[in-house]
């Protein structure tokens, strides 16, 4: 006699857990089924090298929705976010404009911190114009972020529907747009359409500054800093909120797994049941509606609604019986682009990296360390990837969590998290598979770091290399796309994941999507899981709490 629940949530990633918490809070008897032995999906902490605990995949938090932190009371359930301060861009001898290069033998650096005044003083070293523009730019971006943020809370209507009601939130947004000053309207349009590089060119001249800022526009995408449509993501940096403070971002105590644990605790506190090592093999349907799931073990679970936080491809093409979906819709799903483009290298080291341009330990190691010395190098990294090879000189976003959270490694030792772009899921066939190239890719990353911090090589006591293929295998993310589907313009808002099905509903009744394949996309936001759960509850005539 199969167990019966009101709601089954497929996947114990942060979105799955968030939706489970809200569903349980709405009074539904809810169970979460996670394939792996650990919860969190891509937001997971694991001890890969004995004594060293890595945030294996996702590594920083800045977009976790404050309403979720509030409504699920996450701090009480153990959420503790430690601030990271600043972005340090090391340079090599000769990088940057000759006039500015100090100590030609050591090379210069660009160091931005949360303290606006200090950053502006630093920028003056490079360009008076840029120092001035930075103020104005920052204010403008905050205005833009304030305007755009509500979109993260909107359930996108279908513009081809004749029923106008789902479009009302968009109409409201349009009215607010009308009230913006003209220059802000224009800049907003630019953000939605331009490349990060072209957008920044309008304010700044310092190449390493533009290279580093534009880097945030290409994270997780298969696009270059000069690709149209990458400017929008610049906003995310300004949207990130922690305790209401704009632009603050940080790392969860205990790694990103700490977030998942906190959300899981909150879900349990609401009465949700959570099972690990419970891989779902199939979503069961009767007629045109979902009735439950069958686990790989053959165990059947019946449910009133099935909420999948797996991505669109896994949900529709792997978990549903072939032939369940009408061919038109299935074609649209196959059209949805993933194209994972990033890898992750986690290092266990016995000493801190020593940067030639600013030797010794110091504050500069406590924030993000961005390997983005010039716009051309950023773009060339993309050119490599376009044709199916990993970047010879990749962009690396490096964090040393142990400097703010020492418990992640044995005393005196450190873990280093390196987010690496680009590593295209589809390699040029002449290179073979990612299994043949994993270590070569890892070596490329170490070589890249050594260009700026030569002591890195001898400091490594253990390393973990995640290729897009590994991300797909381990996390179940199709083609290793960390956002469950590319955040390209045609795959946003009412087009995500499939035009006409952007409202978390699917063509199969009682089957819902709650993962990053839906609006508003990826990053540890939790917005998808929350919005989906609230839609489910509304559809069932339940109050949200």
């Amino acid at each position, binding site marked *: 006699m199969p167990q019966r629940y009101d709601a089954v949530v497929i996947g114990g990633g942060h979105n799955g857990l968030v939706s489970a918490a809200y569903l349980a809070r709405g009074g539904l008897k809810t169970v979460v089924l996670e394939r792996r032995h650990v919860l969190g999906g891509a937001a997971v902490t694991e001890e890969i090298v004995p004594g060293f605990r890595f945030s294996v995949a996702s590594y920083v938090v800045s977009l976790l929705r404050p309403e979720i932190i509030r409504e699920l009371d996450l701090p009480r359930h153990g959420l503790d976010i430690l601030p990271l301060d600043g972005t340090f861009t090391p340079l090599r001898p000769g990088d940057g404009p000759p006039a500015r290069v100090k100590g030609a033998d050591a090379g210069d650096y660009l160091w931005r911190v949360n303290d606006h005044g200090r950053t502006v003083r630093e920028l003056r070293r490079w360009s008076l114009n840029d120092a001035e523009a930075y103020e104005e730019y920052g204010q403008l971006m905050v205005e833009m972020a304030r305007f755009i943020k509500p979109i993260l809370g909107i359930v996108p209507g279908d513009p081809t529907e004749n029923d106008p009601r789902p479009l009302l939130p968009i109409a409201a947004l349009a009215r607010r747009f009308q009230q913006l000053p003209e220059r802000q309207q224009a800049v907003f349009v630019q953000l939605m359409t331009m490349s990060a590089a072209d957008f920044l060119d309008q304010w700044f001249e310092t190449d390493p500054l533009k290279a580093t800022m534009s880097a945030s526009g290409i994270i997780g995408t298969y696009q270059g800093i000069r*690709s149209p449509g990458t400017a929008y993501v610049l906003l995310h940096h300004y949207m990130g909120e922690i305790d209401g403070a704009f632009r603050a971002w940080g790392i969860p105590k205990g790694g990103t797994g700490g977030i998942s644990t906190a959300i899981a605790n909150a879900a349990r506190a609401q009465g949700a049941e959570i099972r690990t090592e419970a891989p779902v093999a199939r979503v069961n349907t009767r007629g045109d509606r979902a009735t439950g799931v069958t686990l790989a073990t053959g165990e059947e679970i019946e449910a009133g609604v099935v909420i999948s936080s797996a991505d669109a491809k896994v949900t529709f093409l792997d978990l549903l019986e072939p032939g369940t979906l009408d061919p038109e819709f299935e074609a649209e799903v196959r059209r949805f682009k993933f194209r994972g483009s990033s890898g992750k290298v986690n290092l266990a080291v016995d000493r801190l990296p020593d940067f030639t341009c600013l030797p010794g330990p110091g504050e500069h190691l406590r924030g993000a360390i961005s390997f983005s010395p010039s716009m051309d190098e950023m773009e060339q990294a993309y050119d490599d990837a376009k044709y199916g090879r990993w970047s010879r000189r990749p962009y690396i976003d490096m964090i040393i969590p142990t400097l703010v959270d020492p418990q992640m490694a044995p005393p005196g030792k450190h873990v280093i998290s390196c987010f690496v772009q680009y590593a295209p899921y589809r390699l040029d066939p002449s290179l073979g598979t990612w299994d043949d190239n994993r270590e070569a890719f890892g070596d490329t990353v170490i070589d890249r770091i050594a260009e700026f911090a030569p002591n890195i090589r001898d400091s490594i006591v253990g390393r973990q290399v995640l290729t897009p293929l590994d991300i797909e295998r381990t996390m179940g993310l199709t083609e290793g796309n960390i956002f469950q589907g590319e955040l390209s313009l045609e795959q946003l808002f009412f087009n995500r994941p499939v035009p006409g099905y952007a409202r978390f509903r699917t063509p199969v009744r009682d089957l819902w999507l709650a993962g990053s394949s839906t609006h508003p996309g990826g990053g540890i936001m939790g917005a998808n899981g929350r919005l989906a759960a609230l839609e489910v509850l509304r559809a069932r005539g339940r109050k949200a709490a």
Partner: protein
Amino acid sequence: MTTDDPTLAAAVPTVAAGKARHYEVIVVGAGHNGLVAAAYLARAGRSVLVLERRTTVGGTLVSVELVPGVRAPAVAHTVGRLSPAVARDLELRSHGLTLLAPSIRAFAPQPDGRAVVLDADAAATADGLRAWSAGDADAFPEFDRRVRTLARFLAALADETPPDIRVPGIGDALAGLRLGRSFRGLGKVDGRTVLRVLPMAVADFVAEAVESDPVRAVLAWRGVRYTAMGPWSAGTAKVLLDDSAGNDGGATGETVYARGGPGALAEALAAAVRRHGGTIRTDSEVAGVTSRDGRVTGVVLASGEEIVAPVVVGGIDPKRLLTGLVDPVALGPSLRWRAGNLRTPGAVAKVNLVLDGLPDVPAAADDPRRLRGRILVGLTGIDDVERAFDAAKYGRMSDEPVLEATIPSLADPSLVSGAPEGTHVMSVLAQWVPYRLGDGDWDSRRDELGDRVLARLETVAPGITGRVRARQVLTPVDLERDYGLTGGHPLHVEPGLESFFLWRPLLGWARYRMPVEGLYLAGSGAHPGGGVNGLPGRNAAREVLADLRRRR
């Protein structure tokens, strides 16, 4: 070509000076859009003066005499996107315009000696594609239908003045209704498709329909032509659909010549202007737009001569107009900043050749008609095209540029009537050729560019170099200097997603009215953009006339 007659041009000022204070409208620049706007205004009974810096009218629509008795298209080489409405309203036929449309529209030789051929007849195109992929042959008619359907919506957009988003009036509401109707007219499926497709990369758009890489490259080409974007750049699908809007192009694109070269279209437009009483002065460079209290008062010429008029219409690009000719104080700092940031990354060059005989193109051997359409070189695969684009990002020109060549003298022997038997002219558009070079400058590297283009042509037409009797090389810098295109951009402003409809050229200023009262934009920098369709000129004239009526 009366306007080219310097004595006449010289004779005009005295007349004009006498009439000056009576002009209601001054049009700056006698490019095709300036002439279209002037013709519509004159036709409506307004007294119009067109001022052109060059000696010939037409802007980039000119036929140049490369050697005595041989004329060739200097910049633009086809006129297939000309709006039928413009041709009809201005009776261009009666003013001497004859259009020639070869049945084969595009021909792309491939390394293996075969070719991808696009025919005016979709069925014929499909048959030809069968040699590449049976699936593509079957898919082409539906792809052609999809392109035509989506382009029809863009065509509806192209005829409209973008609505006023600040203080919407009745007209804006009506326009909104019309657009809403044409959007709903698409139906649910195509409606969703257009919203999904517009921001796409053209490489992805064509990949949804066809599988053969050469076919993909050829179908995607018009999505990147004249732009500083590659086929993987978002928004290039929109450029492709724009190019198919308002004409019979479909997925193959138009290939239409004007008899006598593109200059003949310019002359027909000029004739229409004069026929309706408009005046055209060439060799008259406008140095500035004069204004008082935020109101246009006229223009001042480089010669120092001032001409007054309550309305000035710019047929030139908006960057030049707003940052070059308008008083910065009248414009204000914020708008000046925005206008200064208009993106005009020119990425094309022209090489025009006089050949002493038809080039020998093996891939066209069994069907010489193939040489009458657009001859596409280097469209062998999407990634090959993307690589040709990559070099430009770093200020270099690719060793293997993409070329679009035409031999207009095949369809129009009049171009070579004064030359020895067998003479032909070839017009070659080369992409991507960056305006800004990483090293050196175009004046010192012009010939290198010409040689590289010829070397590229040799790959499909062995021995063509030996047939060259004369050649003209126009670098992006020449396009800026000789034709006044800021950054050498033939479309005035990059037609990316950041410059579309409501925000072309600038959000809040897309309605042809510029920030100084009485100043209008009629050039390709305005909606719906460039490509010799005449619609910016037509739409701008409509708005000018509406305002003039209101003033009564």
